[in-house]
């Protein structure tokens, strides 16, 4: 009953990436720290066409007794997509995908935070995807990390995330939405850049072990570039160098 004509279908040309990037090139990236009034810390990030906002409250008093830890803070995360962030309107509220990403994000960030300094408290991280274009979980983690730093929360490092994967037979850095959907594999990775330790790793699709290693190295290379932008965002906020 309904026919749809669209101009959105992209044709990939041979081994080139549809958006013309090199295999190890990131999409344009912009990060700004301290963008919200009420939150203790916040950050806004644009990565390609992704637009993500992260806010942090805490450490603050934890009212849910059964979840509090007597010897450390609990870092809780909520990843959420705005209904208007995707092509077809998303129903508001959490779904299975966003709950899984929330859990992984909190696990990706926790190793960096000195949680033991704030027993019985909670640190709450809220990530809102305002526009999605592939790689929102990585964008969310990268923004959240800047928001945590902006909130003055002591950390061992600023966690940073970037995906790599395979599309059109080529291992590539930072998959776009099209490459994510049509490609062979996606490997989102988060690291603590000073030590290189990995705090998030997922993979879906098919890769050989060699390809996986290439992808992981590319993802880490991407992380190191993004990490520089995170630092700049924080320093810019205070008029630093």
């Amino acid at each position, binding site marked *: *009953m*309904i*026919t*749809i*004509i*669209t*101009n*959105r279908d992209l044709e990939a040309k041979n081994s080139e990436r549809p958006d013309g990037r090199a295999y190890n090139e990131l999409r344009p990236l912009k990060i700004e720290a301290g963008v*919200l*009034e*009420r*939150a203790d810390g*916040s950050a806004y990030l644009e990565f390609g*066409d992704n*637009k993500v*906002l*992260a*806010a942090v*409250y805490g450490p*603050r008093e934890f009212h849910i007794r059964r979840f509090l830890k007597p010897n450390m803070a609990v870092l809780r995360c*909520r990843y*959420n997509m*705005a*209904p*208007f*962030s*995707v*092509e*077809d*309107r998303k129903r*508001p*509220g*959490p779904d299975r995908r966003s709950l899984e990403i929330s859990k992984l994000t909190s696990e990706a960030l926790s190793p960096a935070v000195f949680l033991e300094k704030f027993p019985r408290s909670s640190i*709450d991280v*809220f990530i*809102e995807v*305002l*526009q*999605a*274009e592939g790689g929102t979980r990585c964008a969310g983690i990268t923004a959240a990390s800047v928001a945590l730093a902006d909130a003055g929360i002591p950390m061992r490092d600023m966690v940073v995330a970037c995906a790599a994967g395979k599309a059109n037979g080529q291992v590539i850095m930072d998959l776009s939405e099209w490459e994510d959907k049509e490609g062979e594999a996606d490997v989102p990775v988060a690291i603590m850049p000073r030590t290189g330790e990995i705090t998030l790793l997922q993979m879906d699709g098919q890769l050989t072990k060699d390809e996986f290693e290439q992808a992981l190295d590319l993802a880490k290379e991407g992380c190191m570039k993004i990490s520089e932008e995170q630092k700049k965002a924080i320093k810019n906020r205070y008029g630093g160098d």
Partner: protein
Amino acid sequence: MQPIVPEITRESVTNLINEGKRADGRKLDQYREISLETGVIKKAEGSARVKIGNTQIMIGVKSQIGDPFPDTPNVGVFMTNSELLPMAAPNFEPGPPDERSVELSRVTDRGIREGKIIDLKKLALIPGKKVWMIFIDMHILDYDGNLLDAAALGAMAALMDAKIPTATVKDDEVVVDHENMQPLPLNEKTVMCTLAKIGNNLVLDPSLEEEGIMRARISIGVRSDGAICSMQKGGERPFEKEEILKAIDMAQEKTKELFEYLPKA
């Protein structure tokens, strides 16, 4: 959980307002700084980011083809939804919309619906079977008082910004052409003015601190032709009739300023 306002803050703010002054230096009938950007979300058919003071809302308009409501088979559908995100204030909790969020959605919806802002008849495609459904989603990012005026202004701007695909009917089939986008059929514009009763005075655009101590609040939706199209009284204390009439005068005057922020034409 509502934050507890310190008693001395209640006194100092009220005393100032009784003298015709405000804690942030504004006049009683003055808005905070307002900014409005449209077209900020490419994936939405229409969008706006509105700021009044530090209150910030992102609004997206989406469209899809669906079934009309059985009691209005020959007109399009529109729905207004809002989320008071837990990032926006320390006392906003995650979860399904609470009563404040539902009130915000419904009051915004009412201004647009009862002001006959959207020509819903033009959104019907196959009478009784297929119509355009328009969704207005309001994402509250930062709460610093007076969400109602920000929501109404942003929603109106997002509607004006919206471009939906051209849909034509051929042999009882809807053909949607994404290459030919067109604006939503709008008849009019509407915005809203909120006044709070504090001490013996009415103050325009209450700040967070003022909302914490206000006795009551009145919000008035006004169309660009001056017609009043919605009202909502809030807060635990009553109003006198004279106060409401005065509020209407102020709203009709002050909404003129708000219309200036909307996209032209």
